[in-house]
């Protein structure tokens, strides 16, 4: 995971959606975003069928 790219993404999106990240928290947010993205790699690589939909209200 490219931490610099994650940092650039965070800077751009936080500015675009008006969710400022104070400088003292920036590295922590990058670390957490990196962790989430790393966890999600396999999930995002899945080719789900177009018919596999999310449930509006989840009934197990």
């Amino acid at each position, binding site marked *: 995971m490219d931490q610099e790219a994650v940092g650039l*993404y*965070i800077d751009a*999106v*936080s500015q675009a*959606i*008006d*969710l*400022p*990240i*104070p400088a003292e*928290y920036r590295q*922590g*947010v990058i*670390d*957490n*975003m990196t*962790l*989430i993205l790393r*966890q*999600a790699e*396999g*999930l*995002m690589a*899945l080719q*789900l069928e177009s018919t*596999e*939909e*999310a*449930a509006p*209200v*989840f*009934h*197990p």
Partner: protein
Amino acid sequence: MNDLTALSAASLADLVREKKVTATSVVRDALDRINKLDPSLNCCTTVLSESALSQARAMDARLARGEAVGPLAGVPAVVKNLFDVEGVVTLAGAKLRRTAEPARKDAASVRSLREAGAIIVATTNMDEFAYGFTTENEFFGATRNPRDRERLAGGSSGGSAAAVAAGLAHVGLGSDTNGSIRVPASFSGVFGLKPTFGRLSRAGTAPFVASLDHVGPLARSVEDLALAYDMMQGPDADDPTCTTRMPEFVRASLGESRIRLRVGVLGGWFRWGAEQAALDAVDTAAECLGASRMVELAESHLARAAAFVITAAEGGNIHRENLRRQPGAFDNATRDRLLAGALLPADFVIQAQRFRRRFQKAAEKLFADFDILLAPATPCAALALGQQTLNLGGVEMLARAHIGIYTQPLSFIGLPVIAAPMAKLGALPIGVQIAAAPWAERRAFQAAAQLERAGLAAAPVAA
């Protein structure tokens, strides 16, 4: 410890109903124990001495008039501080909420317990906004494990679990989004139930992740867990996810010893990284329950990842305004995760939600052949206070992010799960997850009762 503390909730309520002991003396006893032990354990955020004694006296007066009282008559209960309790600020573990107005009415579950006769003696400590597995709260302190005070109680319902383990109350209420009932049940050595998603009303609780939030009870015996659960069931229009199915009471079926459950042991993801003690606990339970074989719940690692993504995103969304206006007011352990979650691309969250259906179908196939699936609740027994990392499969990983690796995939698809505390003499307890098919809590209870009858699962009051 006196005799009242050691009794089960069911037995205690019988004594109160039979007027062999007054509710007032029971509650006074619980409050004395809280005053004595809680300064060192830090389970409670607010001790409700006045209102608890007042309710106990009112109950004794009703009994004196010959009026009927409920099955939890006079039973001291504690409530995680994310449930509304009338007159108390619902802190949800957050400094941010210190200035909030006190709740005007009880949460649905609190109301149900009170109507059954339980008396709320305290609200309890938790990870900030329920985002954590440790109950090491920056503002309200760490809750200590009553079975080893240098160790974590687990979280996020750690205050309730530790209070029940220490005998400060007979029943506790917790919430579980990714394992927040099952993890502290495992670490603190009590029984905990995360019911089927939608089984119990969440109305009047501080939401964290609407897609995954559950509420449930903690107790020191399977019967007490069943009793509390039965009292909490029922539809509630105030919670759109709450089922309209008829309640399916479980207490009466606990003694059905002729039931032959089809039990499997979850392999793969649920064995990877676990310490031997956790695997031994599962294997002991499996042998007792006559488990036939080990089975794979395919893509469990992706289910865990999907739960991780949804949690961060929904948590970030729900706290977005405060993250924007006063990020410095958040606990250091949660703020950066919530901020990252608030910035996640929608694509990730939608993929995680779509995957939920697929994973649900994989579990459904397994439940065609099994009534019960077993797995560790935690990869190890309680960690030390302040412990930052955890060794999983030979790799040092961040403890906070990984304690719930075995609980997350099961709550992701809303399965009912009981965490049953397995203890070897002289060793710390460790929980086994007893998972059943959706809406089949009764099966999980029957399996837990079998383990308890065999003397393998137990939750004595911590000395």
